[in-house]
């Protein structure tokens, strides 16, 4: 089994997680022009809720649902209670607000669920699949991870492109004022956008938790790499977020595999800077001509 093949398989699974996180960030950015730095912490919290349910005897799938539904609710609550009042505040203030939320959630989780590091059960076996005689480093759970991320993305695509609700959400993000004049409840659409984004984040949390351990800051790196992926792809593009996230997955595993895991983040930095120097607004954004 060539090293490259192994790393590529790892990269795809990791990339899918980063892509989900990047997509969550991009959805919120497009709807409200906010980078939600609490996205990772929110996903961490919903993953804790899932593990809480599983530890109290419910099957895995109930825990999985708990994570997704609580993600949906948490996103809606955060938008409605915390983000809405600062709608017109300077952009940096909202950044600090989400950072405050991040710190709060990371402190609340160990208070509510206990501070010990936990393991999170995977839905399927994490032993590599057998392909003929050789074992591929790609487990049923990896397949499930990839499949559920793809499924969620397709569902979102259908929602945004094919339904009335999706059209209204896009209109609200594109031009709130005109949308309001056309009778769209823009506020509700924004809340829904945050809720859906938070659901995607929660999915990333439950999917990566088995390979990382569960502790209050376990999503921090996923957030950073997801954000980097989103920036790489261009914050205005959902396709860009997915591609950027996958690129991050590949880049990190290749750099880690060939140059040592210490250099993973340095490699990510180099790639990001290199791409941004050529395309300052990411790979997939519509280039707007800047006057200066």
């Amino acid at each position, binding site marked *: 089994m060539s090293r490259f093949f192994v790393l590529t398989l790892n990269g795809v699974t990791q990339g899918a997680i980063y892509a989900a996180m990047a997509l969550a960030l991009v959805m919120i950015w497009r709807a409200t022009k906010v980078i939600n730095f609490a996205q990772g912490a929110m996903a961490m919290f919903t993953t804790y809720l899932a593990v809480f349910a599983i530890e109290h005897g419910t099957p895995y799938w109930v825990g999985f649902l708990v994570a997704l539904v609580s993600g949906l609710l948490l996103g809606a609550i955060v938008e409605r209670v915390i983000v809405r009042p*600062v709608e017109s505040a*300077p952009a940096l203030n909202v950044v600090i607000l989400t*950072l405050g939320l991040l710190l709060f959630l990371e402190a*609340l989780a*160990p*208070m509510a669920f206990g501070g010990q590091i936990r393991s999170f059960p995977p839905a399927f076996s994490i032993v590599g699949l057998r392909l003929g005689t050789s074992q591929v480093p790609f487990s049923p759970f990896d397949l499930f991870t990839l499949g559920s991320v793809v499924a969620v993305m397709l569902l979102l695509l259908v929602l945004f492109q094919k339904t009335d609700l999706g059209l209204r959400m896009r209109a609200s993000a594109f031009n709130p004022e005109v949308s309001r004049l056309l009778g769209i409840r823009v506020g509700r659409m924004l809340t829904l956008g945050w809720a859906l984004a938070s659901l995607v984040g929660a999915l990333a949390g439950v999917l990566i938790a088995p390979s990382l351990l569960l502790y209050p800051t376990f999503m921090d790196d996923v957030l*950073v790499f997801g954000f980097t992926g989103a*920036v790489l792809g261009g914050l205005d593009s959902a396709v860009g977020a997915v591609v950027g996230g996958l690129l991050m997955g590949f880049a990190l595993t290749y750099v880690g595999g060939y140059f040592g895991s210490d250099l993973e983040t340095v490699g990510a930095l180099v790639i990001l800077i290199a791409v941004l120097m050529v395309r300052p607004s990411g790979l997939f954004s519509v280039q707007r001509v800047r006057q200066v």
Partner: protein
Amino acid sequence: MVAVQSRLDRLVRPTFGRHLLFALAAAVVLLLLSSQIGAYDDYNLTAVAIFAVAAAGLNLLTGLNGQLSLGHGALMAIGAYTASLLLKDHHQFPVIVVLLAAVLSTGVIGIGFGYAAARLRGPYLAGATLTLAVAIPQVATRYKSIFGGESGLTVAPSSPPDWLGADFPPERWLAWIAFAAAIVTMVLLANLLRGAPGRAFKAVRDNEAAAALAGINVARTQVLAFVVSAACAGLAGALLAYWTGVTAPAGFTLALSLQLITAIVIGGLGSLAGAVWGSLVLVFVPLLTSGMASRLSLPSSVADNLPLAIYGCILVIAMLVAPHGIQGALRRILAYGRARWGNTPGGGQKGVVDWDDPAPDT
């Protein structure tokens, strides 16, 4: 009386003179304060001064030039490692040499980052600097033979000079160094901001096209802001190396960069005084909350995390009730007072408020 008044005016009116007078007053107050309090408070005030230097630099970049950096912790790391490498084998370089070397090395590296940053805007710059914050400490982990790996480099402390007496507390000596560095930084920055560069920074922040039409080289202005800001971060990093006594990657996590951003927004964007307020909040609010938490008898999983939870809440609430930070709130109170009691605006009495431009009302 009138003659005295006018002579005072002549001394105070020029910006540099006023800044010097204010710096002198600050120095006297801090000197008196540090000799009255114990070693522990000296230690904490040193932290305030260190954060104030870094936050002032970041506020120049983010608040006045509009470039959001989430990676200033990494620049502090560069300063700290420069200082630590100089002090590694108990070489007794004078403090001033170490600090200047850190300023220089971070400033030079800042030129490179500055050129990259000048091409990026808003969230893209945030993303790039965020990665910087995560990546730089990894370099130190990787090259163990130079940077000491995870365990880091030990920093030889700077001992007080002999003329202060044998039993002069080293904490107070370090506090004095940090105060001096902070005051010098503030005076230099205040002058920079009052002059043409400061106006160029703000012009570029407010409207790049208009600034370019007015003959300002936008890219060069942005690089200059980044370099000055990086130099401040480097100075703070070197002071931090003295303060902690050891320079390790774990000291320069993403949290440090985010703390600096927090400090300037809570304190007041675009104002040097805001950087000081923010640093006070950064150092003393966690102390207060952990003091409160330890007095209540709570289970350890709650007590250990309560300070952080309260801190997070304070950030959220502060942004909801005081969107322009502490300095913005103070300005509003002052303006209200003036309008209410009819004091004439202006004059040399405003002290620290006069250093700054009004909060950006974007």
